[in-house]
């Protein structure tokens, strides 16, 4: 226990109930010491300290992008840490691949299920490590062991049911059974409740209690504070890539946790003089987007963006922001409602018509929606502006003008690349994003839809993009800003809406709200009726 005490905070000793007892003798099930993981240009994890006792449910909480997933990938052997040690039961281990981690008894239940729909539960559970007899699948043995696991942990699985007939909660239990079948003693659950409805969440927590009783260790990743307080025996909080402390769920309030998660640093991007004008550029009225099943991802959203105004949408990922973006861009049909750009009803317009009418777009995933990675920069300059100067002359592409304008963007927006003929893939994330921002700004849109404009870019590029957005706003551009970065939202927005389960649940004044309060609204811990 050489490094004991480094993590500080209120340690929750005395809560563990399993054998061995607290204190000195029993090694921890999982201990991470000083884990640092760098990706080129960014540090995703820094000096992570994590101590998980055997037989407990240990929650790891943090905002989106705080580094939870990177950390769990390290623990699951998906990549190697640059510094630090991983100890299992007191012994140091080095994982080269998830296979090593599995062999050491670590199992991962992914947020997105990885099941073959047209296979039975049994087949899915044994897939990849099938018991065989004479080279053929030994169904009897597989069925016996699947039953055994299902019974031992009260998972209630029928081995012969087809996975496609199962509900989400059952599928998750199949995933858990899969991991147990491979002999896991420590389970990592990555945002397990993200896909579940409340009753299913309760069932899952019942299952976790069962696992705990059998002596298994569960690492539970979440950003839903109420759930974490309900299920966890101890909590580690991660912020900006590093562990900021541990907490005892019995004595810590959701508010205190939120403060630890968000930190209390002041936001750096700041706009204080209002440039908001009267004329609305974008109006959404009762916009609803339907899903094939379940509740609508965007439910009755009404908002207005005026000239010179930045309207921020805050919300935990997956609360309908992506669908709202698609609806504004014309990439998704509306079930109800209207979208107005300036005075025009653009509800039925194609994406191209919307872009031509002055809609600029910085997508949340630039590789998926913003760039042609295998194409040169000048072609990426044309993307999204195929019908407008300077890139085209009649039906033809004007290569020379496109190259010249790309060179201008590279100069004006500080895109660091050898030249317009460089392939987009050769640029760093920050430079790709600056090219996209420059491209969209160059068309002088009336409304800029900026989804996570500084996601995955380094600090320098982040500051540059913030300044560009501020300048555009001062010139009268309307900006709809969707982000998960609370500092960004509070610092840039003139008006701030909070989106939760597809609805705008609160409208806040960014000059008066703190990140902690905002975090409270985002997780539903707070409502406009009053603080929780």
């Amino acid at each position: 226990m050489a490094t004991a005490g480094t993590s500080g905070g209120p340690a929750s000793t005395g809560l563990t109930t399993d054998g061995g007892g607290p204190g000195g003798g029993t090694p921890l099930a999982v201990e991470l010491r000083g884990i640092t993981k760098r990706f080129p240009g960014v540090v995703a994890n820094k000096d992570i300290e994590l101590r998980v006792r055997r037989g407990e449910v240990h929650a790891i909480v943090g905002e989106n992008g705080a580094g939870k997933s990177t950390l769990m990938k390290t623990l699951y052997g998906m990549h190697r840490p640059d510094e630090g040690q991983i100890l299992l039961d007191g012994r140091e281990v080095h994982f080269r691949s998830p296979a090593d981690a599995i062999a050491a008894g670590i199992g991962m239940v992914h947020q997105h299920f990885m099941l073959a729909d047209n296979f039975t539960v049994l087949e899915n559970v044994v897939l990849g490590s099938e018991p065989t007899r004479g080279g053929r699948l030994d169904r009897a043995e597989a069925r016996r062991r699947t039953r055994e696991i299902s019974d031992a942990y009260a998972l209630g699985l029928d081995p012969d049911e087809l996975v496609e007939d199962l509900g989400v909660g059952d599928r998750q239990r199949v995933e858990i059974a899969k991991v147990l079948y491979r002999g896991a003693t420590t389970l990592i659950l990555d945002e397990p409740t993200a896909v579940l409805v409340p009753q299913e969440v309760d069932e899952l927590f019942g299952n976790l209690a069962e696992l705990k009783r059998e002596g298994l260790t569960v690492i539970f990743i979440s950003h839903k504070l109420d759930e974490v307080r309900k299920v966890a025996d101890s909590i580690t909080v991660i912020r900006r890539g590093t562990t900021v402390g541990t907490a005892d769920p019995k004595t810590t309030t959701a508010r205190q946790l939120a403060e630890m998660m968000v930190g209390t640093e002041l936001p750096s991007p700041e706009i204080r003089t209002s440039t908001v004008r009267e004329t609305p550029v974008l109006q959404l009225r009762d916009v609803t987007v339907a899903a094939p099943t379940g509740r609508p991802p965007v439910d009755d959203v009404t908002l207005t963006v005026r000239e010179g105004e930045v309207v921020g949408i805050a919300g935990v990922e997956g609360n309908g922001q992506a669908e709202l973006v698609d609806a504004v861009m014309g990439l998704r049909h509306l079930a109800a409602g209207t979208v107005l750009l300036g005075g025009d009803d653009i509800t039925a317009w194609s994406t191209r018509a919307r872009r031509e009418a002055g809609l600029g777009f910085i997508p949340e995933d630039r590789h998926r929606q913003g760039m042609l990675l295998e194409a040169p920069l000048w072609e990426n300059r044309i993307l999204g502006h195929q019908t407008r100067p300077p890139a085209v002359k009649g039906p033809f592409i004007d290569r020379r003008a496109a190259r010249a304008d790309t060179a201008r963007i590279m100069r004006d927006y500080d895109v660091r690349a050898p030249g317009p003929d460089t392939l987009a893939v050769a640029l760093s994330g920050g430079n790709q994003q600056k090219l996209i921002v420059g491209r969209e700004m160059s068309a002088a849109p009336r409304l800029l839809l900026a989804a996570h404009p500084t996601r995955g870019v380094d600090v320098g590029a982040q500051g540059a993009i913030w300044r560009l957005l501020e300048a555009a706003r001062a010139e009268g551009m309307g900006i709809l800003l969707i982000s998960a970065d609370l500092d960004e939202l509070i610092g840039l927005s003139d008006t701030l809406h909070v989106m939760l389960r597809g609805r705008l649940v609160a409208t806040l004044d960014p000059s008066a709200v703190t990140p902690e309060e905002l975090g409270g609204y985002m997780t539903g811990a707070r409502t406009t009726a009053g603080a929780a």
Partner: protein
Amino acid sequence: MNVLRRIGLSLFAPVLAVVVAVLISSAVMAALQVNPLRVFEIMVDFGDTPSQQVTALVVVLNRAVPLFLAGLAVAIAFRMGLFNIGVEGQYRLATILAAGAGAAVALPGPLHVLLIVVVAMVVAAIWAGIVAVLKVTRGVSEVISSIMLNVIALGVASFLLTGPLRGSPEGASIIATADIPESGWMPSLNGVFGLLGLANPPRQLYGFLVVAVVVGVLIGVLLNRTRFGFDLRAAGLSPSAASASGVDSRGMVIKTMLLSGAVAGLIGMPDLLGSTHSYTTDFTSGLGFLGIAVALLGRNKPVGIALGALLFAFLDRSLVPLQIQDFPASVVTIIQGTIVLAVVVANEVVRRVARRSAERGSATGAAVAGDGSTGPGQAASGAASIGGGADGGEGTGAGESRTTGAGQRSDERQETGA
């Protein structure tokens, strides 16, 4: 320097592939106790007299023209990420209907030819259009539907040939449509040989060669220089980015397949207008499938496809001389097959080298700038690593919601494989 390097890279792959293919097929021939050196000698032997040599050249060119058109038809769809396997059925059905139409009417020369060509293009475009409509409205994979439509097209063609469009007398050994009158023939280019001072061979050099060159240039311009071509290529490189940029992906599928089909309709024209003048039971078949190989060989670019078509035509020409010398004709097929395999591998190798050198090229610049380069480094193999990239930065939700899904799936594969 840069230009030289690029040309060098683009030539490197096919040359490497051909060399590897020659080595592999030599080994195969040696194993079959065929003397590979002798085979290659026969292949390059175009005959002794000038007339023989020019004739051999004409045979190669005449074969290359339909191969080029087939490659082009496949490549148009390929550039948008569509796999048009139905070229075979499209051109066979188009050719028999064009032959029927040509035989049924009498028009002045150029108009007659034009009518036949237009009928062929329209028929093939419609046939390809079915594939597109099925894909857009019902989500049917174009691979499946085009393969099935191939079978139907060949069935319909045989029905037409033995039924309504039959022109040959009862009991003839080869069933054929009625001959197209002479006004619907395409004049040969043999006058050119006189101008060049070469011997005029007994064979006719297809006049359709000119059409093919024009079509090749037009398609090249269309794909690389026009807005339409940009939209098409963008949709091929990244469907999601293309639709976010305003490309109507469903409309693009239909337009691309219609265009691909229209070009496919031309494949049978050189033979029909230049030599056979009727569709027969032994009309040239298999060009649609060879077109896939030729398009691969030419990396979906018109100039490359032309070179690929010439190479395949050159190999095909040696079939007859090889058989005369008692060599098995299958050696040609073996060589063609290994070339295609080698090209696929070599293209991939070159693509990676080019990509890595591009990344390295800017890595230095980025390092100076102190900029992260997670994106490119990780994105090299598509969605799987984009998740990693997003996570590497202060990547937030995208990594966790959609893209990591893919990343984890590939890890799952690793894990089960291990």
